[in-house]
C-alpha cells in the first residue's frame, strides 16, 4: 500500500456501515497474520495466497512454526503484488494481531503508516504510538456470536479472512469457492460454519474506521498461462513425479515429511510406491534398491537424517547408482533448530561420505524452481548414473507461491525401465559413463554385471589394484566434469560489471535480487549471481568474477573458523580468488532485504521500503523442454 489510509485511531463500532468506502488501486501489499498456530492462521493465509494465484496476481508467503508439539505463537505473512514478487517483504502494511503477544512481538514489523487490525477482545494496543493506524474489532466475540454462541472461538481465522476480503476488495465468490473446496471432504456442517464465519467478517462495518478499501491492480501476466499455487514441498514432490520418479522411501522428519506424505498418497495413482521405512538408513537403501531395479527413486530428509544416510549415498557414488536425495535444510547441527531455516548443509551435501565420493548438488531458488529442479535432478541422475542432492530449506518448504502452470505435456518423463536384451554388457567401462542395465535384462554372452561397493573392475568384480582404483576414482570424478560442461552459466542480474557481485544459492534468491534492485536505485554498481548448480559448478564463472571488484556471497550459515560462508569457501577454493568474501547469518530466519543491504553495504543507508519490481526471470536451465528427453537418451561416450 502506497498511501496512508484515512482512518481514525479508534475502535470501530459494529453498526452503521459507511457507504462511501473509496476503492484505491494498489500494486503490492504485505499482510501479516500473527496468532497461535492452532488458530488456523496458516489456513487463512493460504486462502489469500490461493486467491491471489487464481486472480493472476503474484504472491509469496512466509511463515514461522513453533517447534512445540501443541502449537504456539506463529505468523503467516502474505505478500500480494500486481507484478513479480520476489521476497515476502521486510515490513508489513497490514498486521492482524490475535493476542497481546502477537501485537507486542510484531508491531515493529509494521511499517510506519501501516494498519494494525487487532482482536479488541484480547489485545490492548498502545494507542499513543502515533506511527500506526488502529482498527480494533472484537474478533473473538463476534466469531462466537456468528457461529451460534458456543464458547469456542474456532473460526476466527475465517472471520478475519472475511474482514480482509472486504478491506482489499477481494473476489468473494472465488474465496467462498476456495473455502468450500478446502472443507469439501469434511462434514457439510464444517463448510457451512466456515462460510458463516466468513460472511460475518465480510459484513462487519469496518468502513466506520477505514475510509478506503483497496483494489489490486490487474496487470495481465506476460505468459498468459494460468497460475497454480502451492508450497515448495508440494512443488518438489510433483516435480519428481513429472520427472518420472515412481518409487521412493523416507522417514518422518521436519520439514521433509510433507514431501513423503504427498508422494505416499500420489505415487500409487501412477503405479508406484513410496515406502515409509523403519529408519533413515533403510529409507535410502530401499530407494537404492528401487533405482537399481530400474526405476529412479527418491529419498529425503533434513540434516539429521541425511547424516544417517551418508554411508549409503557413498555406496551410490561407488556403485554408480542414480538416486535423488532431497535435503530440506533446517537449523543445525544435531537436532538444532528444527523449525527454522538455515543453509548449513552445503558442505555435507558435497562431501558428506567417507572417501572420494562425487555426487551432484542442486538448489532450487523458489517454489516454482522446486518443481523444475526436481525434473532436472532426475535427468542428471539418469544421464550420469549418480546420486543427486536437492538442497531445499524450511522457508521454501512452507512458502506458498503462485507460478505459471507448467506445460506438462512437454515435461513428463516416462519412467519404464529398458529391459532389452544385450549381447554383452560391462557395468563399469573405464572410458565411458556408466549406464546400468536393470536386473531382468538378459545378457546373451552369459556374463552378468555386479554392482559393488568394493573397488571393482569393469565387470564389477573386486580388485585391489592401485592402478584400477586410480582409474575408477578418476572415472567417477570425470563424469561430473563432463556434467559441468553442459550446465549453462547463470545470467547476472543487474549490473554486468561493477563494484560488487552478490552471489547466492537456494531460497535467498528473492531478497538478494530485491536488495540489488534497491542498491542500484541508490546508485550502486552491483549485480546478483544465483547458483542452482553447486556441485559441480558451471564452467565460466571466473569470467563473471573478473568484472567485479568484490564478490560477496549471501548465505544463511556460519562464517566458520576461517571466516567464510560455505559457498564462499567452495568458490575461494575453486577460483583462488581473494576478493570473494561472504555475508552470513544464523538467526534461523530468512533474510530481510534491509538486512542484506546493511550487511553488504556497511555504513550506507538506502530507502527502506520501496522495492522496484523487475527481478530477473529465473532461468530453469536444463529443464527446457528440448533438454528433457526420455530415459533412453544418448549418453556421451569417451569420458575418461
Amino acid at each position: 500500500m502506497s498511501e496512508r489510509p484515512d482512518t481514525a485511531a479508534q475502535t470501530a463500532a459494529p453498526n452503521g456501515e459507511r457507504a462511501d468506502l473509496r476503492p484505491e488501486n494498489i500494486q503490492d501489499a504485505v499482510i501479516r497474520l500473527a496468532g497461535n498456530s492452532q488458530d488456523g492462521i496458516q489456513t487463512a493465509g493460504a486462502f489469500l495466497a490461493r486467491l491471489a494465484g487464481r486472480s493472476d496476481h503474484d504472491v509469496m508467503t512466509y511463515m514461522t512454526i513453533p517447534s512445540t508439539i501443541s502449537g504456539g505463537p506463529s505468523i503467516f505473512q502474505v505478500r500480494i503484488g500486481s507484478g513479480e514478487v520476489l521476497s515476502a517483504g521486510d515490513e508489513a502494511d497490514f498486521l492482524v494481531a490475535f493476542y497481546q503477544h502477537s501485537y507486542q512481538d510484531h508491531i515493529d514489523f509494521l511499517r510506519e503508516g501501516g494498519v494494525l487490525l487487532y482482536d479488541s477482545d484480547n489485545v490492548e494496543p498502545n494507542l499513543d504510538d502515533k506511527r500506526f493506524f488502529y482498527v480494533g474489532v472484537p474478533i473473538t466475540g463476534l466469531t462466537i456470536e456468528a457461529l451460534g454462541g458456543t464458547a469456542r472461538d474456532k473460526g476466527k481465522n475465517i472471520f478475519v479472512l472475511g474482514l480482509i476480503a472486504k478491506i482489499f476488495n477481494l473476489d468473494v465468490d472465488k474465496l467462498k469457492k476456495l473455502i468450500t473446496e478446502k472443507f469439501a471432504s469434511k462434514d457439510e456442517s464444517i463448510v457451512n460454519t466456515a462460510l458463516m464465519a466468513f460472511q460475518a467478517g465480510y459484513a462487519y462495518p469496518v468502513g466506520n474506521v477505514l475510509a478506503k478499501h483497496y483494489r489490486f491492480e490487474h496487470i495481465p501476466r506476460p505468459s498468459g498461462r494460468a497460475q497454480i499455487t502451492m508450497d515448495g514441498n508440494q512443488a518438489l514432490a510433483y516435480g519428481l513425479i513429472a520427472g518420472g520418479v515412481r518409487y521412493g522411501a523416507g522417514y518422518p522428519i521436519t520439514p521433509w515429511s510433507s514431501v513423503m506424505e504427498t508422494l505416499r498418497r500420489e505415487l500409487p495413482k501412477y503405479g508406484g510406491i513410496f515406502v515409509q521405512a523403519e529408519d533413515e538408513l533403510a529409507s535410502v537403501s530401499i530407494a537404492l534398491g528401487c533405482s537399481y531395479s530400474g526405476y529412479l527413486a527418491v529419498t529425503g530428509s533434513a540434516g539429521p537424517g541425511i547424516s544417517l544416510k551418508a554411508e549409503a549415498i557413498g555406496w551410490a557414488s561407488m556403485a554408480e547408482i542414480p538416486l535423488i536425495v532431497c535435503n530440506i535444510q533446517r537449523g543445525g547441527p544435531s537436532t538444532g533448530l528444527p523449525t527454522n531455516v538455515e543453509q548449513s548443509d552445503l558442505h555435507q551435501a558435497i562431501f558428506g561420505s567417507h572417501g572420494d565420493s562425487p555426487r551432484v548438488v542442486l538448489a532450487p531458488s523458489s517454489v516454482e524452481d522446486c518443481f523444475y529442479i526436481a525434473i532436472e535432478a532426475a535427468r542428471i541422475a539418469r544421464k550420469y548414473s549418480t546420486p543427486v542432492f536437492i538442497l531445499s530449506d524450511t522457508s521454501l518448504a512452507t512458502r506458498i507461491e503462485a507460478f505459471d502452470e507448467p506445460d506438462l505435456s512437454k515435461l513428463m518423463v516416462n519412467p519404464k525401465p529398458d529391459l532389452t536384451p544385450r549381447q554383452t554388457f560391462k557395468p563399469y567401462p573405464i572410458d565411458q559413463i556408466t549406464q546400468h542395465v536393470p536386473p531382468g535384462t538378459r545378457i546373451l554372452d552369459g556374463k552378468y554385471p555386479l554392482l559393488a561397493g568394493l573397488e571393482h573392475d569393469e565387470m564389477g568384480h573386486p580388485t585391489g589394484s592401485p592402478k584400477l582404483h586410480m582409474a575408477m576414482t578418476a572415472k567417477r570424478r570425470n563424469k561430473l566434469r563432463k556434467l559441468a560442461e553442459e550446465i549453462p552459466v547463470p545470467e547476472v542480474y543487474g549490473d554486468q560489471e561493477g563494484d560488487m557481485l552478490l552471489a547466492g544459492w537456494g531460497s535467498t534468491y528473492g531478497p538478494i535480487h530485491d536488495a540489488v534492485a534497491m542498491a542500484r536505485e541508490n546508485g550502486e554498481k552491483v549485480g546478483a549471481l544465483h547458483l542452482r548448480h553447486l556441485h559441480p559448478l558451471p564452467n565460466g564463472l571466473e569470467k563473471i568474477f573478473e568484472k567485479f571488484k568484490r564478490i560477496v556471497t549471501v548465505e544463511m550459515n556460519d562464517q566458520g573458523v576461517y571466516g567464510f560462508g560455505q559457498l564462499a569457501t567452495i568458490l575461494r577454493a575453486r577460483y583462488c580468488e581473494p576478493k570473494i568474501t561472504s555475508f552470513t547469518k544464523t538467526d534461523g530466519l530468512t533474510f530481510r532485504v534491509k538486512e542484506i543491504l546493511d550487511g553488504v553495504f556497511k555504513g550506507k543507508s538506502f530507502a527502506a521500503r520501496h522495492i522496484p519490481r523487475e527481478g530477473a526471470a529465473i532461468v530453469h536451465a536444463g529443464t527446457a523442454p528440448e533438454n528433457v528427453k526420455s530415459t533412453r537418451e544418448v549418453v556421451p561416450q569417451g569420458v575418461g
Partner: protein
Amino acid sequence: MNKGTTGNGDGGTAVAEPPREKLTKKAITADHPTWCPGCGDFAVLAAFYKVLEKRNLEHEKIVTLAGIGCSSRFPYFVNGHGAHYIHGRAVPLASGISLARPDLHVFLFGGDGDGFSIGGNHLDHGARKNINMTYFIMDNFVYGLTKKQTSPTSPIGFKSKTDPTGAIDQPVNPMKKLISAGATFIARTHATQVKHMMEMIDRAFDHQGFSVIECLSECVEFFPDVFDPADPKKGGSFEVIQEKKWDNTPEDELRHDVTDELAAYKLAQLPFPGVFGVFYQSDRPTKNALEKKWIQSSREKTGNASDLEILQKTFDRMK
C-alpha cells in the same frame, strides 16, 4: 509358485530373443570363492547352485544381494544380476528391488553380524512388513572377516579378541527373534547337511513372503568344531523337526504344526544344538500384495488415466 508370480509385470521389450538353454551350474558360477578352505559357506553355495539348476529359473531374473561379511561375498560367486551392498542394510536394499520389480527372484545372503547385529532392526521390519524375498543367513557365531570378535550369536564364554576372558553378553536366539518379528517362513539348517539345506532353500523360495533360513555354517579359522554336536559325521546328532501330516494318526499328535507360533517358540527354546527344519510358516499377505492392491484401487479411481492426465488434474485443482 516362485517369488514373483504376483508381479505387476514390468514392460520387458518385445524383441525377438534367442532360445533359452537350460540353466546349468556352469552358467551361474562366477569368481572362485575367496573363503578359507573348509569354510561351511562353500556347501551353501553348492546347494544354492543346485537349487537354481533344479528350478531352471530364467537366468536374468535371479538377483543375489548381500551386505558385508565373509558370507556376504556370496554375490561375487554367483554369475547373475546382483549387488554387494553396505554392512547390515541388505534387507532394505532387497526390499526396494522386491517392491519395484516383483518379477524378479530376490535372494539375499549374509551372516550373523550383518543380520542380527548391525542389521537387526531391518530384519525385524522386513519380517513385520512381510516383504517377498529369500534371506539365507550363514551363522558361524563369530566375526570372521575382521578376525575373531564376539558376534551377536557367540555363546556365553566364547573367547574372542573382544572378549579375551569369554563372552558375557546373552546371545541372540535367531528363531525367537524371527518368530516375534513376524517373519512368515522361518527355517534352520546346517551347512554339512546339503540335502536338508536344499530342501529348506526350495521351500523358502516357494513361500510368498519374508522367508529366512538360519544355517549353521562353521568358521574353521576362528570357531572350529562348534557345530559338531549337530553333525552325525562328527559324533553329533542332526535332529529334524517332524511336521504334521494331518493324517489323523496318533503319531501326528506329536508332530509340529508349522503354523503354531507358540509351538515354534518352544522348539526355539531347546538347548544347543537344537532342532532343524521349518519352525514356522504363515500365509499372511505380503507388503508386495498389499501395495499392489492399493495401486490397483488408486489407478481405478483415476479411471486408469495416463500419468500426464493425473498430474494435470492435480494441477487444475491448484489453480
